[in-house]
């Protein structure tokens, strides 16, 4: 890849980070955070985007960022206070900046109108701001000045450094070296200012140089050499007139004489050994020879460093590919370790044998390595959460509702792949909460609530999973309406007896939409069923709890990683299968008396006063024979992500273990009822069961008969 293209990618990646930082900071400021560092961070974010945009000559972006930054700088310096209307403008500007960045990334033009209004508003913010707005940093494409073919001229340069020149690590020798690169030089050193050794300050400045330079370069080239030291020396540069034209009063060019009185009459023929200039700075520090003045003491520096280094949390950036390669390798390691374990067991070695014990240690280590590697990929959910405030602002504007978004647990970490995939479901859940959950301000006030509705987004770790909640304090699910709609859509029978929970869960059914008219917010052809499917595809669960008049809470529970899974190893029809442990509620031996056949294929199990459909995995997966006689097999009570339960019949349970997930879809194709595959200790491939598909299919076929059996049983 072209290095510039690579840096460009980095720039846009960094822009995203800066934009997130910017928004988070602005939101903190809006919430009343007056910390100077918050304002600084916000300023830096915009400043940084501007700087990078300059490199890539993204003029529009640079101009807008500059206007934005100017206002932020005014807040930073206290010239402008962060009042609500200012914060609102800044937040909108952040949104616009985001659009500009995205457009630049895609090489699109952004209509001037997108930013023009904001620029005018910014101009109106500060008195006299309008003039300032126009001092926009133009992107200059600097062109190295082409050496001009000037006639050869002779210059006299007199340089009297001050001590401050050396204190800033500038060097006379280097200046002379640069001069010598311009042409032929003759250097004279005047040491007359040197004091006696006893009075000499090692850091003082006592010398004066006079350089005669013969060059074909112009005055600018000479001046440039002294660019950095202008204020730290007395400098005179003048041309030695060509004697031939002396009488013609050739104009004498005097260039720099900043700190020294300009000679009233330029020397026609300056004395080469100029007397020490009258304005020569007295040696700083007087006669002290001491080099270690208190402020220079190394201990100070070390103390400062010690103090700061304790707060340093060093980070490195690593290509994701490398991490993924490592995760793959660790996965292989886990499998190999399991194989080794099995071989040792097969060899009949005692558990107390040295080999077995070493192996146990290896197993623990492997597990630890695996956890550590997984932790590398873990990232805080902040990057996803940070996108939500903007979404909420936009939705609030579109719906005319007043919404306050509260976020908690942004620092909760989860695997990067999970983060990438929760963005869409989360976005939809928030849309849903605002569009369907929250009432209009009038309705809220009428119901005795505040006009402003609240949506709370929370992330936390719970029993090895990440749980994300989207809670609103709206009207809650309108159960009679949901039920009526589901009946109308033919999703449930008109006489179906449904619990409140079951009614609430109807909204996850495909083809369900409660909005009377499809709004352009939630009704984008995506229903909660799609949300549930995408969550389930990650091995996640989504559930809802709703209280009429008080609001709804959607709870998303996801595995921390998509790379490994705790599974139960089972055998059925001579096939080894893995059932995700999270889905298994309990295992039992069914009694023949508790099994009620519904027809020649389906049956249910009476379990603690209820009935659960029985699924013969071998049958569903078409393993050929109907192997299991229910009463001779092991029954696993499983629960799908949607909360539906079923009994899975298997021949035997072989154990539990962590397995490395290998995609079947990527290596072969999607297989019905199978979520993925893994490699077992003996090297054989085992399939990982997709519990949800199996349970939902069974429920559909069983549902119609369920009510009948249910009434018989009671």
């Amino acid at each position, binding site marked *: 890849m072209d290095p510039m293209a690579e840096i460009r990618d980095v720039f846009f990646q960094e822009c995203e980070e800066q934009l997130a930082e910017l928004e988070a900071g602005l939101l903190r400021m809006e919430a009343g955070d007056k910390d100077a560092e918050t304002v*600084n961070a916000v300023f830096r974010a915009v400043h940084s985007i501007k700087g990078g945009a300059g490199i890539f000559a993204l003029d529009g972006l640079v101009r807008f960022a500059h206007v934005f930054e100017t206002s932020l700088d005014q807040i930073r310096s206290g010239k402008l206070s962060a009042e609500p209307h200012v914060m609102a403008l800044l937040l909108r500007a952040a949104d616009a900046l985001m659009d500009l960045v995205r457009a630049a990334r895609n090489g699109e033009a952004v209509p001037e109108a997108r930013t023009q209004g904001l620029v005018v508003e910014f101009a109106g913010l500060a008195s006299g701001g309008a003039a300032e707005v126009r001092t926009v940093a133009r992107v200059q494409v600097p062109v190295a000045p082409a050496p001009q073919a000037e006639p050869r001229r002779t210059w006299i340069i007199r340089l009297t450094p001050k001590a401050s020149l050396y*204190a800033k690590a500038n060097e006379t020798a280097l200046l002379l070296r640069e001069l010598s690169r311009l042409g032929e030089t003759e250097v004279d050193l005047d040491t007359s200012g040197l004091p006696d050794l006893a009075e000499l300050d090692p850091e003082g400045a006592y010398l004066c140089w006079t350089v005669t330079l013969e060059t074909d370069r112009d005055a600018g080239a000479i001046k440039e050499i002294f660019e*950095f030291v202008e204020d730290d020396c007395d400098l005179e540069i003048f041309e030695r007139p060509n004697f031939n034209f002396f009488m013609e009063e050739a104009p004498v060019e005097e260039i720099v004489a900043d700190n020294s009185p300009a000679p009233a009459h330029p020397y026609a023929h300056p004395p080469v050994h100029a007397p020490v200039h009258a304005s020569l700075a007295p040696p700083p520090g007087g006669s002290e020879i001491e*080099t270690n003045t208190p402020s*220079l003491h*190394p201990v100070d520096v070390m103390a400062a460093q010690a103090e700061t280094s304790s*707060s340093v949390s060093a980070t490195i950036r690593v290509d994701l590919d490398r991490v993924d390669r490592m995760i793959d390798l660790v996965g292989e390691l886990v499998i190999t370790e399991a194989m080794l374990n099995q071989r040792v067991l097969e060899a009949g070695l005692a558990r107390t044998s040295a080999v077995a014990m070493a192996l146990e240690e290896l197993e623990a280590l492997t597990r630890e390595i695996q956890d550590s590697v997984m932790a590398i990929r873990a990232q805080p959910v902040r990057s996803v959460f940070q996108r939500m405030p903007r979404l909420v602002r936009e939705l609030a504007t579109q719906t005319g509702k007043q919404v306050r978004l509260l976020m908690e647990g942004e620092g909760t970490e989860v695997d990067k792949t999970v983060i990438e995939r929760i963005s869409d479901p989360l976005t939809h859940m928030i849309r849903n909460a605002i569009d369907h959950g929250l009432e209009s301000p009038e309705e809220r006030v009428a119901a005795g609530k505040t006009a402003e509705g609240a949506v709370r987004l929370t992330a936390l770790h719970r029993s090895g999973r990440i749980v994300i909640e989207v809670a609103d304090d709206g009207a809650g699910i309108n159960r009679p309406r949901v039920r009526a709609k589901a009946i109308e859509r033919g999703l449930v029978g008109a006489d179906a007896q449904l619990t409140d929970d079951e009614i609430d869960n109807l909204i996850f059914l495909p083809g369900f939409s409660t909005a009377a008219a499809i709004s352009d917010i939630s009704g984008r052809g995506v229903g909660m069923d799609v949300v549930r499917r995408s969550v389930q595809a990650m091995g996640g669960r989504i559930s809802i709890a709703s209280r009429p008049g008080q609001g709804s809470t959607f709870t998303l529970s996801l595995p921390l990683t998509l790379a490994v899974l705790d599974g139960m190893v089972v055998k059925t029809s001579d096939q080894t299968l893995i059932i995700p442990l999270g889905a298994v509620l309990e295992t039992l031996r069914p009694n023949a008396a508790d099994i009620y056949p519904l027809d020649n294929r389906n049956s249910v199990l009476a379990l603690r006063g209820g009935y659960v459909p029985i699924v013969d995995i071998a049958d569903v997966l078409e393993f050929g024979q109907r192997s299991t006689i229910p009463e001779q097999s092991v029954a696993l009570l499983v629960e799908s992500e949607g909360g539906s339960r079923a009994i899975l019949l298997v021949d035997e349970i072989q154990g539990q273990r962590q397995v490395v997930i290998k995609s079947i879809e990527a290596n072969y194709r999607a297989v019905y009822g199978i979520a993925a595959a893994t490699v077992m200790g003996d090297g054989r491939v085992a399939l990982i069961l997709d519990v949800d598909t199996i349970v939902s299919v069974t429920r559909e076929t069983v549902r119609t008969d369920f009510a009948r059996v249910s009434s018989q049983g009671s």
Partner: protein
Amino acid sequence: MALTVLTVDDSRTMRDMLKHSLVAAGFRVLQAEDGIDGLEVLKTETPDVVVTDINMPRLDGFGFIEAVRRDVERRSMPVLVLTTEADAEKKSRAKAAGATGWIVKPFDPVKLVDAIRRVAA
């Protein structure tokens, strides 16, 4: 021997850009993400020239330069500051803090290398 340059900038884009230009000029490049990080690098490395940004988290360019100038071992190390525009106020503040010189962003790679060579012993 190739000159070693330490770049101190919180923007990865800028760090990459600097590195790209400096490596092309045959320099050895060290990188730091802010002033604190820069001081940390200076504990073990002795670059010929340091190029630092001004606006950075934790320790900005001014503070970084001041710390370098307070360190007897490092005080004679040339430090160039990067300023986004020819901001006279920032320039003079940087000078007051002890900056050897400055480079105006967006920088021209030729001028950048030139400025570094100019201050490198």
